[in-house]
């Protein structure tokens, strides 16, 4: 997912929005299966479809606005280690004034190019790099879509703790993932001209578009891993598919911050993912870290399909190269 902060004009007010695009890319490294998490992108590449991802929360503006999003993202492997993902989000903004109609429309289209750099099965470690492009002007300005491109080079990583000694076997199902990206707007500032109603003089209002550090991580406990690689407790099958987790998605303006300020915003997202062999379903709470990040606890849910499992000889295989890929070692439907 591309964590980003945008600003939208809604009835003359600047509304801070956090469009929640679907996160993609599940990954398998030896015993470890990294599910596709909802808040941040995962460390690997694969053929998959997130649809739909839905969320609802109140923005951090004063007065706050109820924002609802529905989004989808499709990722296609070009080679075993390189994939291109396409994502789109439709946003509904509740009205500030109850008598008004609100606003809705598409966010900018997003494309992510991602390459898996390194995978170590023994230590359940994987690292990828990517470049996300938000195509300016492809969305609706009424919901905050910028008229300019934004480029976000990002580093992704994942580490499972399956290599811990036997004395810590109960910790082996734990894994962490993370991403660090740097969002660079294609335009440094936007100046809006107007006329002062009192003096009749022309006014100029300049908004600087900050360069933003998009960072976040997850800590997750894999019940599938517990059953297949640590200890089979004989639990009901439903519980053997669960991955409880906590995600953090954060944005920190770093440069060109004259009008945006430098305060970090974002959410902490506790939730759970049910992992099957061909799809997964996840739901998380969206807990804002401060008032600027939101005014109440929101929610996000996602249905995610593993195309490499659904159609391994068709759409689920790389366009070029080997069709054989590692599989989830533990989950099943």
């Amino acid at each position, binding site marked *: 997912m591309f964590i980003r902060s945008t600003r939208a004009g809604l009835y003359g007010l600047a509304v801070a929005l956090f469009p929640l695009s679907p996160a993609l890319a599940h990954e398998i490294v030896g015993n470890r299966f990294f599910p596709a998490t909802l808040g941040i992108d995962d460390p690997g590449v694969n053929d998959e479809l997130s649809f739909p991802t839905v969320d609802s929360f109140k923005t951090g503006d004063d007065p706050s606005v109820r924002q609802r999003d529905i989004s989808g993202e499709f990722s296609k492997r070009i080679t075993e280690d390189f994939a291109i993902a396409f994502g789109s989000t439709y946003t509904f903004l509740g009205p500030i004034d109850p008598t008004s109609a609100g606003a809705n429309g598409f966010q900018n289209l997003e494309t992510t190019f991602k390459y898996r750099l390194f995978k170590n099965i023994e230590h359940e470690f994987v690292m990828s790099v990517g470049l996300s492009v938000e195509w300016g002007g492809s969305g609706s300005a009424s919901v905050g879509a910028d008229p300019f491109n934004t480029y976000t080079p990002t580093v992704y990583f994942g580490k499972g703790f399956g290599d811990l000694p036997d004395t810590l076997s109960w910790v082996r199902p734990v894994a962490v993932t993370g991403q660090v990206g740097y969002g660079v707007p294609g335009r440094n500032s936007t100046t809006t001209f107007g006329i002062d109603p009192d003096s009749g003089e022309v006014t100029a209002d300049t908004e600087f578009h900050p360069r933003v550090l998009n960072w976040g991580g997850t800590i997750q406990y894999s019940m599938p891993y517990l059953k297949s690689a640590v200890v089979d407790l004989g639990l009901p099958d439903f519980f053997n598919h669960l991955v409880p987790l906590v995600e953090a998605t954060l944005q920190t303006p770093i440069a060109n911050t004259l009008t945006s300020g430098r305060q970090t915003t974002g959410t902490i997202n506790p939730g759970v993912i049910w992992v099957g062999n061909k799809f997964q379903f996840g739901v998380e709470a969206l807990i804002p870290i401060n008032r600027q990040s939101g005014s109440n606890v929101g929610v996000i849910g996602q249905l995610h399909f593993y195309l490499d499992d659904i159609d391994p*000889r068709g759409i689920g295989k790389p366009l070029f190269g080997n069709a054989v890929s590692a599989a989830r070692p*533990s989950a099943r439907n």
Partner: protein
Amino acid sequence: MPRPFLFALMAFMLGLASEVQAHATLDHSEPRVGNTVATAPHEVTLWFTQKLESAFSSITVTNAAGERVDSGKTRVSGSQMSVTLRAGGPGAYKVNWRVLSSDTHATEGSFSFQVGH
């Protein structure tokens, strides 16, 4: 997005997910993963969620000293895979497995079990 199209797409994807065969994943084993058995088993058996390709599927079992205690001949039957063990004593045993399912996905994993107390 028009609602009928949305429902149709979701029904299509769910239909695919429920009808198309996915790759093999470990369902359970005997001895059970991470459990303790009173006496050394004569064989280790793994059950997977899909049919396996016998030519590319194997099990190895090592004792606490890291020595191979399996016969080296993995038997595959449908979604089940077994290997015979040589006589062994109490202690920790590690099972390493690797399978190729009929839809060409490779999977590998490992787990331990204990013999004795």
